[in-house]
């Protein structure tokens, strides 16, 4: 039983392929009747096919609640401490997220001198200002969530847990840049000086910034 005769194939294929290549223009598989993310739609006056959800609706899988973890507030004031246990994995996650999302402006060490600032963008405040050293953790949460000044909201890219991880890392940066040399043990002090030979102890006994 012959379902398929190879001997008759080439001629047939030739004709078929030739016809197919001629008719390729009517097969609109390159232009599809569906929308890719953020593509244009002529239906809406603003031409955007991406629509803003209706205010007040709650999708599935989004944490809801008024706990400090989700809002950064407790009893109406920004929460003082990070409302989740700080572990080394949280700090590592925070470091990673910080370096992705924050360092372009805030700089790797948090002095507000990231690459974009070096190219002329507005400089964000350094984390080592008195104001930010004393700011509650909830303040940072609020700024990441809603933006402040020239900084816009990062809520769509940094989820709630990652925000606290970043805040934990910012706290670590603050400690790293704002500890008294005298609070270190002699070995630790030696280690600091070895790893950063141009840092010289300043009069206030703070580790200095490299020039």
């Amino acid at each position, binding site marked *: 039983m012959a379902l*398929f005769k190879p001997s008759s194939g080439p001629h047939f294929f030739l004709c078929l392929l030739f016809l197919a290549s001629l008719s390729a223009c009517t097969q609109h598989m390159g232009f599809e009747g569906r929308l890719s993310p953020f593509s244009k739609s002529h239906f809406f006056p603003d031409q955007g096919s991406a629509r803003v959800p209706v205010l007040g609706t709650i*999708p*599935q899988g989004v944490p809801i609640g008024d706990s400090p973890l989700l809002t950064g507030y407790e009893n109406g004031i920004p929460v003082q401490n990070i409302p989740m246990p700080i572990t080394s994995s949280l700090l590592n996650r925070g470091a990673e997220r910080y370096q992705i999302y924050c360092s372009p402006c805030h700089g790797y060490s948090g002095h507000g001198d990231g690459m974009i600032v070096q190219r002329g963008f507005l400089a964000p405040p350094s984390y080592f200002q008195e104001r930010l050293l004393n700011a509650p953790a909830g303040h940072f949460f609020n700024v990441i969530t809603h933006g402040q000044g020239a900084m816009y909201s990062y809520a769509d890219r940094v989820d709630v847990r990652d925000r606290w991880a970043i805040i934990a890392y910012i706290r670590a940066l603050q400690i790293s840049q704002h500890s008294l040399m005298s609070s270190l043990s002699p070995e630790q002090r030696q280690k600091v000086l070895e790893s950063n030979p141009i840092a010289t102890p300043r009069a206030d006994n703070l580790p200095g910034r490299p020039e």
Partner: protein
Amino acid sequence: MSATDDNPSFDDPESRRSFLKILGASIALAGLDGCTFFTGSDIIPYVTQPEEIIPGKPLFYASSVLHNGFAYGILVETHLGRPTKIEGNPVHPASLGGSSPFMQANLLSLYDPERGKGLIRRGVLSTWDDFYRWLSGRVAQWEKDGGKGLCILTETVTSPSLGKQLLGVISKYPKSRWHSYQPVGREATLQGASIAFGKKLNPCYRFENTKVIFSLDCDFLSPEEAGHLHYARKYSDGRRLRANRHGMNRLYQVESNFSITGAMADHRLAVEQNRISDVMIYLAQELGISLRAFQKKEPHLTDQERFWISEGAKDLKQTPGESLILVANRQPPGFHALAYLLNEHLNNLNKTLYFTPLPEFLPPEPDSSLASLIQDMNAGQVETLLILGGNPVFNSPAELGFSQALNRVPNRLKSGLEFDETAFQCEWFLPESHFLESWGDGRAFDGTVSTFQPVIQPLYDTKTPLEILLAFTGNHYDTGQVRIKETFRELTSSLPPLAQSLEMRWKQTLQEGVLKGSAFEPVPASVSREALENYFSHEQSPAHLSGLEVSFYPDPFIWDGKYANNAWLQELPKPLTQLTWDNAAVLSPETAEVYQVKTGDLVSLEYKEGARSKGIQIPALVLKGHAHHSISLYFGYGRSVSGSVGSKKGFDVYPFMGKAPEQLITGVTLTKTGVHYPLAMTQIHSTLEGTQAVRFGTYQVMVRNPKEIVPFENQPQASFFKNKTDLDPEEAWAMVIDLTVCIGCKACTVACQAENNIPVVGKDQVLNRREMHWIRVDHYFKESSKGLKVLFQPVPCMHCEKAPCEIVCPTEATAHTPSGLNAMVYNRCVGTRYCSNNCPYKVRRFNFLQFSDMSSPLPRLMRNPDVTVRSRGVMEKCTYCIQRINAVKIQADIEKRSIRDGEVVPACQQACPTQAIVFGNKADSTSQVARLREEPLNYELLHELSTRPRTTYLARITHPNPKLAEPSESENGSI
């Protein structure tokens, strides 16, 4: 020449792809290939991207949908703020995660380009401001005269907010009136409760505790019952057979038409509608209940029927407290009350049958029927009529004369989703928002409060019914959201308090779609037999004229005409007839022979109503198993003012009705017109013809020896095709479909259509056998001396391991993936259709024409962005929802784990209300699908071809009463 595994002609490298490559290259060099025209496209991002949206990932919202007034919980899939798919909400009692075709197809209604887009006053576009200005004059007058002449006509209202507002309007304007009407109502059921218990109560059933069910015409698996998805799940849970589970419920069905419940029944008795009351009376006698009014009555039943009923009665008596007697809404109230009495007698009351307060709001007037409204309208007492939803000009029996009466009302207002027949006759047309754009609430069949949240801003300038009604009390500034929340606050105050704040509870309710604990508590009920005796002693049984009888049913998918403009539902083959795009007069083969009619013959039905005679011309459709001397007509078709899809399709049955859709018409004559009307049916042959395409048997045989039902081992046989060598040993996708619980509802077909961007083709192309559904539900009739058995068999692509389609494709457009999917590469397809010819299951679909609208903006918004839209000349078929497999795979990769069992859910499985479809990885021996494939009832479709399909079936098992079954009791798969 014989081709075997070692025949080199199939895999000779020079003969296939390399040849094509060379050829392709030479054409490219010749410059014929340059037809690509990518012009680049604009990216329009959010200004402020919402926190919860991740481009490319779907976001789900819990909401609800109303069908026939009752709420069903849904999950709406959105992509970048656009709804693209509707699923059932697993935590909602009325859906339990399953879907009905209506739920699925409602998505298309949202994006219907022919929806009502703006206000229309006397045929001219208007604005809401104009309307409010017009209304404010009326409101001022109503405040003075107490709303004299104001009438509101609604459909069934279960929304606590809308109900409160309606009662608010009535109390603010004491002279105003509220009427309610819908063609598929349940007045008889509620009146039955009021006869039996002295008040109207809502009957609910617990199929999970039921062993024997005796249903009198009650199609509880169809959307006529508000709890049908819940009931379908619980009913099939009582039938699902696995190696380690025993016991099965038994269903007796008495009906004239062939319903899907009848198809699922273990014993089905087809009797004319006018004798269903006789069955009821005889059943009561057999159960030992003999009402005075019936003592002298001799039921018109044959000996065979009497034997059938008495065996059913014996079965019921053997399971006190675990049986159930059901009566259809269309049966008269007395028989509902009688059924309640029988249930009480069998100790079922408050067990398998329980009662709750009514989820629906009833108008306070004693007579709030449409007939009394029409009387008032004709008497000139109605000055302003607001028709809030519904389409009474079309969907009320013409006998009542609503359309003529409407013209006597000076101010006529109609709100609705589309501009329909009623809007055409009204001064004002007020466009309603689709439920996917609306805030709202509603109650499910058991009273559960369900919330609606909008998943997209209204596409047009529309308002919800609640917002429209608010304006009637002079309040056109409140949004629906505010009112819904206020009602929520009131509703929660009557529930046990929780630790969380009200705001948190609101948010949680919105997120889940269900207000927890809001289902009504059952009301203990006991039947007053005396009231029943009284009722029946006064009740005259209607006289039945000789000739044919005609009963009326809502169309299974177009419903009362509401979904006429929905092309998915129009093209969905109706259960048991597989008819699309039309309605027909359904009659039995015996009756057809008497009148010498065949399917597709246009017949003329006539009867005399007093001095007048009424007639209709409609094509006949011959259906096995239908009661003799009886005709079933489906209403909903024959719309005159609808969109391009819905208008002038099928035949309008409303003019042929009596005073109500549930009224039985007798004394009908049938004459042939001699005209043939083509009916587009997707399956025109429904007997197995001695093949073993569907395996089936009885519970008794299965317990004895399942091998009698599935006699062969699922062992690999010698095959024509060579073995695949590159299959993944870790990942092997497979599907098992349990035919015992498939109820043939077609939710899978339309769910697949929505998920996979499948086009509709129209009636002419269905007549050409070019319908595109990727999963069809076949049915077969198996006749025996003891009755007719219906076998449903959903057929998606089998994903054969030795796929006959692949071997014949000249371009390798269809090829196997390592995980066992028979994949289509659309861009390689040149449309030879060899694959379709070589597919023994006929599951491949070819785009003969450009069926998908590629350029209109609205369908583009609706389509699943994860699925390619196919163009003309391309073959397509079920992919096992490969986009869903890939999404899960990516997520598992991110989380560095393997895919969990049950994580990949294709659209058909997700939609199935009875969980008949199971999908998973058969390589994982612990997965559900692997275990089901080991079941003794597992079989492969067309096993003898040795295609080694990945889709397999579990044989259909029924549980007959041995006294009523074949004497040999060997009703097994071999015919």
